[in-house]
């Protein structure tokens, strides 16, 4: 019993850290632009494809790449996707920045479809086997099985999140991003380079999302052009649950969602006498999304925005 629990906790932590990496992108973009970037799930997908392509180009035989090569490929792939993210913002969202608030979001839906279709045309619509970026050894922890892939994912995600946290809270770039998130008009008035702040967010978000994609594809050993759709929506759910716009909220929401999913999947068949099986895992996540939107749209750590404070902020 204890072994099963430990194993499930590790499952939840693994999937939770991947959700967290993606959710951070949604929440940061919402922070600076107050928009939902529906193309963000595709950055997750592109991460896996970019890593696969670079790996294949660098060394024909994927099987025996060394640690250094794998690390280089990882960073090259996430940076490529980060640059794609910046380009997407410049081409598809920036021209719409001063129009209706809905316009960039609709544009992001279009970008999402275009990217999926482009990958389908270039690489084919079928799933492709993905080489694990981590050696696969199994450990026995108090009766539960934990793989080295899981531990690798946890460590990589942790390092990335600490790096982001440090960047956002300690660096000048992070201060500027937070200033722009709080009030774009005031930032502009002070001569802060608002476009730079927005580009930084559209770089950092996709970098983390792409990292999530590589880790996810390593975990399941497979990638497909549509892999970003459901995971993207789940990470979006996590961001809403934690409070969209809040960076700690995105991480918190991601782990809560992962634990609810894992626990739900394990308990649902038992509780309903086999009526509801493990396939209801996704329903659980989106039930949470609907519930949060109905009961507390600001999420766990988000600040409810009163109409009054909005007016005060805008009029100077």
């Amino acid at each position: 019993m204890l072994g099963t629990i430990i194993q499930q906790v590790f499952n939840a932590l693994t999937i939770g850290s991947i959700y967290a990496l993606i959710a951070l992108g949604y929440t940061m973009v919402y922070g600076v632009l107050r928009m939902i970037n529906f193309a963000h799930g595709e950055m997750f997908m592109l991460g896996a494809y970019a890593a696969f392509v670079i790996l294949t180009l660098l060394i024909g035989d994927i099987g025996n790449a060394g640690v250094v090569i794998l690390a280089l490929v990882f960073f090259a792939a996430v940076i490529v996707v980060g640059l794609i993210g910046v380009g997407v913002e410049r081409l598809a969202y920036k021209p719409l920045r001063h129009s209706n608030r809905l316009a960039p979001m609709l544009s992001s839906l279009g970008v999402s479809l275009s990217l999926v279709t482009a990958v389908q045309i270039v690489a084919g619509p079928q799933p492709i086997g993905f080489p694990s970026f981590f050696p696969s050894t199994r450990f026995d922890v108090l009766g539960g099985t934990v793989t080295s892939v899981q531990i690798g994912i946890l460590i990589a995600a942790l390092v990335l999140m600490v790096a982001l946290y440090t960047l956002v809270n300690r660096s000048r770039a992070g201060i500027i991003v937070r200033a722009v998130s709080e009030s774009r008009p005031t930032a502009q008035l002070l001569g802060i380079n608002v476009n730079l702040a927005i580009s930084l967010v559209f770089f950092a978000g996709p970098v983390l999302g792409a990292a999530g994609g590589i880790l996810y594809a390593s975990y399941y050993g497979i990638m497909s052009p549509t892999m970003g759709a459901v995971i993207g929506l789940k990470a979006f759910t996590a961001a809403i649950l934690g409070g969209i716009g809040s960076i700690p909220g995105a991480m918190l929401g991601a782990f809560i969602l992962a634990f609810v999913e894992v626990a739900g999947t394990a308990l649902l068949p038992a509780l309903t006498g086999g009526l509801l099986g493990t396939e209801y895992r996704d329903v659980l996540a989106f039930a949470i999304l609907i519930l949060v939107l109905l009961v507390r749209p600001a999420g766990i750590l988000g600040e409810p925005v009163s109409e009054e404070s909005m007016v005060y902020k805008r009029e100077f």
Partner: protein
Amino acid sequence: MVLGPNGAGKTTLLNSISGVARPTSGTILFDGNDITGARPEQVVRMGLAHCPEGRQIFQRLTVEENLVAAHVGRAGKSFEALRSDVFDLFPILKERRNGMASRMSGGQQQMLAIGRALMAEPRLLMLDEPSLGLAPKIVQQIFHIVLDLSKSGISILLVEQNVQLALECGDYAYLLNNGTVRLHGPAQELAEHAAISEHFLGGASETLLHG
């Protein structure tokens, strides 16, 4: 200095100068250069800082982070040098440098707003109603510092509804109402001018009481 009742167009005037609002007609000259329609970041880099109405401090940043955000590196002074100038001017900001800006009183936030504007090393500092909602004692303190700044060589463009106080401090004043200049002249002359009492002391005396 620009004076005028609520809704006269004072804030709109400053917003037009700093590039936040686009004027529909007319030209804006700064130092002989046409800056009409320039974007705010360009205007700031020319040495024109705007301290907005209602302070607009970044509440979720610390005091020091507010200063970091506003440092655009215009005339080459290092962040540390500018920060120590600001801390000399407003010692309370140094004391509370690592505290959240939202935890400060209105007067302290106004000091931070002015300090933040100074991080751009302005040649001209535009202040929009720095006395808004502050106790008279604090207002005096802030006006003394603004006067010191003016003596140190920074030109000040002050917008106020608190007419009496402003006329005591300033050199030259414009009276704005309904979007047009009604009167202008040296502050001392205006202070004696009958129109002042007509415009403000009679018609809008409640603004004086609030100020």
